[in-house]
């Protein structure tokens, strides 16, 4: 059993809306897996099916070797979940909710008080406040501390940093890296790409309820272009060169995206023109994402 999550051809519709339309997802045990997609792509629906809150219409799904619907309760003892939109009981305090969620996870998963205290300090949460007085970020912290303080082997985090400030986001990243060293598996859904870039071992990108791409970032970059930014002695002519895209020329300043196969050819032409300054960088996840997202608009049946 090396895969914590195995999903094949998952389908789910709500009335006439097809939320998931043949989604595939593999999360290996012990990895941090980023689950990326624009709003409405089906990330939350997938997670809720994995939690047994929703019933799939078709396809296969395995979670920690079990059936997420049939074995929900026993599987839940081994995982912790942070919802994307954290709603808490307004009359209970943050501290009470952290203890309660830990307790409900099962008898074996009692919270270590030292660890609980350390996390509360790290995230600067006031546990004596009633939940109604918390901001969105503070509600998020309550759910995160409850999840991180548990000893669950799998963490399902649905856009966990959506309400956190940059300082708390950094604290969250540290925590995830600690968890990785402890061998926990983390599925991290996000549309904040720098987060996935900083944390994830592997990435799955989904769009319209289907998997668009999956792999390590290195594997994905292999499929993508390099951004080249050059200051030249003389203007170089790259028009019509195969493998060159989005070419912009302003006098001697040149910027373009280059397929990997064409890199050697392009660099040859640039040095021939005399290179003054040159940056070549791998595409950011934003660029990858934009490419997949905009492909939808240029694809068949696209909206104008």
């Amino acid at each position, binding site marked *: 059993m090396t895969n914590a999550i195995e999903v094949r051809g998952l389908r789910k519709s709500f009335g006439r809306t097809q939320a998931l339309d043949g989604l595939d997802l593999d999360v290996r045990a012990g990895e941090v897996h980023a689950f990326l997609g624009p709003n409405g792509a089906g990330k939350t629906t997938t997670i*809720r099916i994995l*939690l*047994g*809150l*929703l*019933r799939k219409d078709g396809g296969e799904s395995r979670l920690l070797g079990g059936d997420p619907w049939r074995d*929900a*309760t*026993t599987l*839940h*003892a081994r*995982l*912790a*979940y942070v*919802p994307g*939109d*954290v*709603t*808490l*009981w*307004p*009359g*209970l*305090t*943050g*501290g*009470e*909710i*952290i*203890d*309660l*969620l830990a*307790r*409900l*996870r*099962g*008898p074996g998963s009692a919270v270590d008080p030292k660890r609980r205290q350390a996390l509360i300090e790290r995230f600067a949460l*006031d*546990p*004596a*406040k*009633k939940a*109604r*007085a918390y901001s969105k970020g503070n509600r998020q912290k309550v*759910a995160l501390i409850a999840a991180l303080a548990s000893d669950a082997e799998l963490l*399902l985090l649905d856009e966990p940093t959506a309400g956190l400030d940059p300082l708390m986001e950094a604290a969250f990243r540290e925590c995830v890296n600690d968890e990785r060293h402890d061998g926990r598996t983390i599925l991290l859904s996000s549309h904040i790409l720098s987060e996935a870039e900083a944390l994830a071992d592997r990435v799955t990108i989904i769009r319209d309820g289907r998997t668009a791409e999956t792999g390590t970032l290195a594997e994905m970059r292999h499929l993508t272009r390099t951004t080249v930014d050059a200051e030249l002695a003389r203007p170089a002519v790259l028009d019509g060169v195969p493998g060159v895209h989005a070419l912009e020329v302003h006098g001697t300043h040149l910027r373009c995206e280059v397929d990997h196969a064409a890199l050697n050819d392009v660099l040859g032409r640039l040095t021939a023109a005399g290179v003054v300054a040159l940056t070549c960088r791998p595409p950011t996840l934003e660029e990858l994402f934009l490419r997949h997202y905009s492909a939808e608009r240029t694809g068949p049946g696209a909206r104008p």
Partner: protein
Amino acid sequence: MTVPALAGTPLAGTGVLARLAFRRDRIMLPAWVYVITVLIASNSYSLGKLYPTVEARADLAASGGRNPALVFLYGRFWGDSLGAVSAWRYGVWAAIFAALMSIFLVVRHTRADEEAGRLELIGSAAVGRLAALTAALLVAVAATVALTILLVIVLIVVGLPAAGSVAFALAITTCSLAFAAVAALAAQLTSGARTARGIAIGVLGAAYLLRAVGDASGEGGVSWLTWLSPLGWTEFVRPYTQARWWVLALPLALTAAATATAYALAVARDHGAGLLPDRPGRSTASAWLLGAHHRADHWPVGLAWRLQRGTLYGWAAGFAFTFAASGAAAKGIGSLLGGSAQLRNAFTRLGGEAGITDAYLAAIMSLAGLAAAAYATSAVLRLRSEETGGQAEPLLATATSRISWGLSHIAVAVVGTAALLAVAGVAAGLGYGLRTGSAGSEVAQLLGAAMVQLPASLAVAGAAVVLFGLAPRASVAGAWTVVGLVVLIALFGQVLRLSQWILDVSPFAHVPKLPGAAVTLHTTGAPLLWLGLATVALTAAGLAGLRRRDIG
């Protein structure tokens, strides 16, 4: 309603918000107005049937006016015209319902929206900081005006004098307006809508108690207390008996004062904050909240209790008060009903044939059963509000199964319903027994009479469980429809000459009418056993549905 002159002022956007409030309340608000109107009209009409002659009403006035329990419950007698008797019997209670309408309405569109964060979104638009409060009060005023007009029309149609009807309607609706302003003030005090509602309803309860104690103490006692209560003002307008119009100025003055204070507070305070600070709570959970047992599948019953206990305490206080007063009224009920053969019949229909006092007490106990059914339904429906509010999701992502989550709230509903019925029985027993000097035996007898209602009350809540499991979207409306039908069948089924099988659908048709009916294993035990089995079956079906369906 677009008034350009308001742009940039604290009132900017009031018109849009008022229209939004009307849009959101387009069903609830007319329903409140309709129910209050129908309540008054139908009861004034039936009082006319029950006490058709001046002699019968004079009889009622003489015995009712002497019965301190009834005066405590309804108010003082001013006259024996049909209008005056109607105003005595329903004026204060109609004012209570109308005040509740205003409280729910105003809190819903002010503090509840603010707490949920919806007002923040609105407040970021070109909307002034007083707009939401003003819009809520405008909607309350509109509802009050509509209610006044409708009441005047139906009272005149029923055949009551026009001037008195205007005074009666205004006595009720000015009280409702005053409580709209009280609710607006309460909404500025706390940061939680639940607490704001609680404060306003608490003021209403205090107003009722002041009035009740002032009225019941009689001349020479503390009868001036009634003058301190807005509900006392409703009574003191004395519609149909040389109406004192000037008394209407009192609720209007309270409205003005409370509104002015609410505005002063609203201008000064921060968005989202209240005047009363939030008290910090425990930073760790108590053992009680976590539950004591060590099993793989946890019952979150500590949580369910924590979430529901406040509501239950409120119901219990209401039950204790109402049934103590109703029990106390049982002494002398025979002479009170003497003038009306029809009223006597009404009680024996609901309460059985064995003597008018027993029939009255049995009728009171079946009312306790119906009210307890409403409580049980609301307690079960907490499951649905936890689901739609999103709190159920993190809970069900733990090792808590859907069944144990469902059962934890159902357990609170069962225990709470049993406790409320016990309170009703003991309170009525004490109320009656202390006046007749046989408290011990009356408490025992009426406790039994209250507890036989339990299977029927729970069967009604069983319908809510089935709907929650199998048709969650329709569960709230459906469950309350069931409660409404059961109440309708119990109160009016025989009057409307419904066929027997329809009457038999209501679980309360199978409850023995105690005290009075003979208690045997066959007549008492068997129906209760069947009701219990039906409730278990309904609950099992609902939980099976809950296991199979999508959450959220």
